[in-house]
């Protein structure tokens, strides 16, 4: 099953842009984090797509993706913890309401 790679690339860039749109347009911090997850996944797909045609060490792409997933998990954890903290202190997680360094 041979999928031409540029199809995948187009797909991932679109997915990436969707994620970007989400990050840009959403008011809710958790929404932003979700969109960021989408962007990350788009990149991972790219990795896997390319890793197949990479001669010397085919598995490097996959290892990259693994590390990417793990790190995404770490960032999500810390990001959400921060969002939680902001919510607890400011009772709001709308980014346009949290634009002052003080409250």
């Amino acid at each position, binding site marked *: 099953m041979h999928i031409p790679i540029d199809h995948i690339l187009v797909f991932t860039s679109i997915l990436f842009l969707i994620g*970007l749109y989400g*990050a*840009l347009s959403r008011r809710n911090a958790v929404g932003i984090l979700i969109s960021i997850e989408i962007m990350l996944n788009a990149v991972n797909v790219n990795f896997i797509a390319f890793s197949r045609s990479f001669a010397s060490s085919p598995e490097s792409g996959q290892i990259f993706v693994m590390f990417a997933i793990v790190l995404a998990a770490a960032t999500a954890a810390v990001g959400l913890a921060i969002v939680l903290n902001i919510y607890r202190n400011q009772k709001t997680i709308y*980014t346009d309401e949290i*634009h002052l*360094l003080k409250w």
Partner: protein
Amino acid sequence: MVTQAILIPLLPLISFTMIIFFGKKLGTKSALIAIAASVGSCLLSASVVLPVILNHGTALHASLTWLMINGKPIEFGILVDPLSSVMLFVVTFVGSLIVIYSVGYMHNDPRFSRFFAYLSLFLFSMLGLVLSSTLVQMYFFWELVGLCSYFLIGFWFEKYEAAQAGRKAFITNRIGDVGFFLGIALFFYTTGTIRFIDITPEFMHPYANTAVLTFATILLFCGAIGKSAQVPLHVWLPDAMEGPTPVSALIHAATMVVAGVFMVARLWPVLETFPNASQTIAVVGTTTAFLGAFFAITQFDIKKVLAYSTISQLGFMITALGVGGMGAGTFHLMTHAFFKALLFLGAGSIIHGTGTQDMREMGGLRKAMPNTFWPLCIATIAIAGVPPLSGFWSKDEILTSAYLGNHRVIFWILMITAMMTSFYMFRLLFLTFAGKTRGHIHAHESPAVMTLPLAVLAIGSVLIGLPGSPFMGHWFQHFLEPHAAVHMDTFVMIMSVASATIGFIIAFICYFVKTDLPQHLAGQFWMFYDASRNKLWFDEIYNSTFIHAFKWISRISFRFDSNVIDRTVNEIGRKTVLTSRIKRWIDQYIVDGLVNFVGFSAQVSSGLLRMIQTGFVQNYLLFMVVGLLVMLLVAVK
């Protein structure tokens, strides 16, 4: 032997410290300590003097080096030779008698124990001076003695005159001491040694006629002038009468004032090698003697009279040393110590009894104070120079040495002085004891503790003359100068007896027969009377000249200081203020200006940048995307 010698001065020192620390607790018992100390040192000195006497003047000497100046040692030590043994005997014997006497005299004085502390301190320093083996050590005790005299003269310091007198005495002494110190320095510098045992005629011979040494001896003599109240610096002694009478007796009769004479006697070999130095000393001595007597004649204060008589007697001693009669001078020193102390103590008991010092209020005290009258009478006879008593022998010795040394002028002046001496002494006797009591005083006899020393001293002044008299073969002079020729001159003896009797007769006429004669004479010889009465205006002269000049100099320097120096300092201050104001201006407008400018520019630029920090997370993301876009555009093109 050496320890006993050291102990002699130490005992009074110990009593001084005891009294100083425990005086308040001891109260009257402090007198006991002082007496014990003086009597103890008297016995010790006896034990030390006896061997010296027995084996013919062999000196006991021990010393330890205090510090080294370019190799030459300066020592502290003990020297007991015939001269110092005489002084030891005089000081300790007379000192202890006076201490006993002053117990009675200072009976109800609030600072009773402090007086005895000062007395023991004085005894310590006097004994130290006498026993010192080098000039520096002597100078050290010389200063101490001056200090004690200041304490004792100014004992009743609440009285203004006493304080002034103490200060005056101390300053005049200090002037003399300066000369003394310079002399020591010069002497040390030239001869290299200041130890008395080194100063022997043979040692001095090589320096025979060096000008520096003559000048040094004169300077040394200045110390004696200051201390023994010779003419230029004698003014402090009459004022020193402000102190209590035992003080006058001890210090201004028996001991301190003779320190000068002792020092000159100590430097006798030096004087022998420098005839012109001894010449000047003789001249000074005779003038002091004559003037002392001249002033004493017209005084009415009993203690003033005695003070001036002391000055004239000191003059006698100094002239004796000046004309080469070291033995005669020292002999007169000893005898004078006895009867002058007796005179002072007598005057003290009179004052104690009558309460006043002015002879014009006294008179007719013979019956009231018999125990005081007889010793005083003996003393007057002794000092006048009537043959059997000690005064005659010692004065006669001086006169013969002056006569033999064919110092003609000096001989005649001394003779006149002797006459005047006997006149004013008998005047004193008659004014106080003969006739009726002029003032409204009721005299009462002094207690036994005062009259007993008087009696002892009376006996002493009678017997003390014998050792030096021909009956004992001039033993005293030979004791002092083993190989000096001593022989009496009949003409001199006759002349001295004559002068004594003439003085007696004049006094008898003036004050016993025709009591108004003195006024009459005073009226006629008003010039002489006024001169004598006002002590030749020495004080006034000094005040108007030295003191006035000194005050002027200090005023000038004060004005100089306040105007010139202060003004310059203020000027400097003002200048710094000016420069600092300029600096402040620079700092404010230039440096701060720059800094503010930097701040201002930072603010402006940050104002611009702030627009970007909207705080909306999405905006930042948008900026990123735009950045990405730009990069892509660039990459694609």
